[in-house]
């Protein structure tokens, strides 16, 4: 599945940004403007993320380390894309690479408590499109979308391409 960003990713909050409860979740997404036309599904996604400090500290730019996953039940298809503005170029040496500073210690903890004392995060919003070859979507939801970093997974939003709306799950 070829997922595309139809807008640049903006790493800023706005009135539509969700709130994340950092003790209970690391990433929360909100989806609006679900559309389906000419065999392309579209949606606008906003996210707030707050990782425990030691997790965020493994990355220079945790916001660019996250991945968007689209699980298309309608077509039995799926795909993922990194949340990085890849059309941007940087002066050589202008920013630290690689993004990951340290690998997570193994075994990684399960998706247990997020309770700690310090968190680092931010916000983002972006327009997303992916191909949907079904002439007429039938399933509600037709697809599921979520963000993840390592084993920190956001809430999952269903895309109802029949009624063109987001379904909070």
């Amino acid at each position: 599945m070829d997922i595309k960003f139809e807008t640049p990713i903006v790493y800023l909050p706005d009135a539509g940004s969700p709130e994340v409860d950092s003790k209970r979740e690391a990433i929360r997404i909100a989806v609006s403007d679900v559309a389906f036309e000419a065999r392309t599904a579209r949606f606008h996604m906003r996210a707030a993320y707050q990782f425990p400090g030691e997790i965020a500290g493994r990355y220079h730019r945790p916001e660019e380390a996250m991945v968007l996953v689209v699980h298309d039940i309608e077509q039995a298809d799926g795909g993922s894309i990194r949340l990085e503005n890849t059309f941007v170029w940087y002066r050589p040496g202008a920013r630290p690479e690689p993004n990951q500073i340290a690998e997570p210690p193994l075994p990684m903890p399960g998706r247990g408590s997020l309770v700690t004392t310090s968190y680092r995060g931010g916000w983002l919003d972006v327009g997303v499109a992916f191909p949907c070859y079904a002439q007429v979507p039938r399933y509600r939801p037709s697809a599921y979308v979520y963000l993840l970093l390592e084993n920190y997974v956001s809430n999952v939003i269903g895309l109802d391409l029949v009624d063109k709306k987001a379904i909070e799950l």
Partner: protein
Amino acid sequence: MAQVKQYVNLPGATGVVGPTISFRVYANQVPNVHPGDRVDWWIEANPANMDLKYQSTAERTQLAHGPLPGVTSGTNHYFDNTLTLTQIGGDKYVVKASRDGQRANFKPSDEYETWRKLYYSVWWSHPESLAMFNGVEARWQDAFKRGFLELERKATQATLTPAYEARLDYRSLGRQFTGAGAHDWPFMNGGPGALMNLRNGGGNPAGATLSDKPLHMALLVVPDLYWTQLERMTFDPTTTVAGSTPTYNRIFPDPQLGGQWLWTAQASWSGAGATDVRGYFTYTVGWPTQINWDLRPLAGLTPYLAGAPGRNFRLDFAYIYRPPIGGFSWGNFSVAACTNMPENQVLQALTHEMGHAAGQAVQQEPLYNVGTGAALGTFETNPNWYNDPYGGSGPHCHINAILTPDPTTSSRQIYIWGGGAQMCPMFYMLNNDSDPDHFCAFCLPRIKRRDLRTPTGAAGTWNDFG
């Protein structure tokens, strides 16, 4: 016989514009032809033209018809035909007309050489950036001329606001929006502090338009540029009433927010709602920069913490910072920073971005039967094409590069210069080892073969702006 540069990707059908050329010959212009005779037409292709294996029947240069009788109109008797040229650049064709069956005695047309053209307009925010661009422009144009793509500068203008460091946010931080379409590209909305005034993606309807869309790029050259971003930090629970935390980000007091560098800062404790504590913060620039807070004067907090053992509070703040960037291309907008960049790297950035517009790097091309033009169902693969798993993002060229272990890519390998001949400007990152203005022997012919009626790009479309 004159040689004509025919710009086949431009819309239209007059003069040197467009892929079609109409011919009309009169009976007295073609040897031995009289009213009632048939005139034969044929194309003489230059032997150096692009191999027909890359072109389907419909894509090939062709005449509307072969031998046909003419038309009488008043005292005239004439013969018409129409040539439709390929979209491939660098081919040469001559159309010949003779009395049917007497090809040895023909009337030749001019020689048509196929070219493509894209337009650009330059905005500059500082004399230094204009001087840099002017210094590399000819070499940049020449890089594409070798692929029979002409870049024509339409206009040159100073930005509405001069800027040494240009702020290029995709969305205003102060514009709190709820739906899609929140990207208002404030630097090009023509308002106070904006650099440009262009229509963008359904927004800024009062903005100016670009001619010749989707073939016109808006190119902004600035000494330096940045955008703004937020990082949020939360300490919960904490008892640190006066403390600091480090950041390696460059904190940005936002003039559009009255010099504020904190977007939010709130302290919360039991019995008190979230309290705005932005006024209790400072920062100390360094490496790292320290973000400091001293909430001791904050009414109620210190007495609350001292009131019983184990009490704590929540401190939550988000600060504005400016990541370092060098430039970007979105659709038909491209911006490049020039200061402190070697001239060759500025040139490589410009060549690389326009190279993407010209469809580079190409992974594979469909092949066709040379005789019939029928699709063979097979593809020619570019041996130097690669993408994200080996470094960077998007389609790039790794000629003269080698793979070396790298933990940051999904393949665990990344391309670096091999130490021999120079790499192609379509290598994935700016460097000192790519030829900044000569495409490699694999990319250059693919630029010739690219249909440029609709340029592509690394992101967006060439209809996005103007």
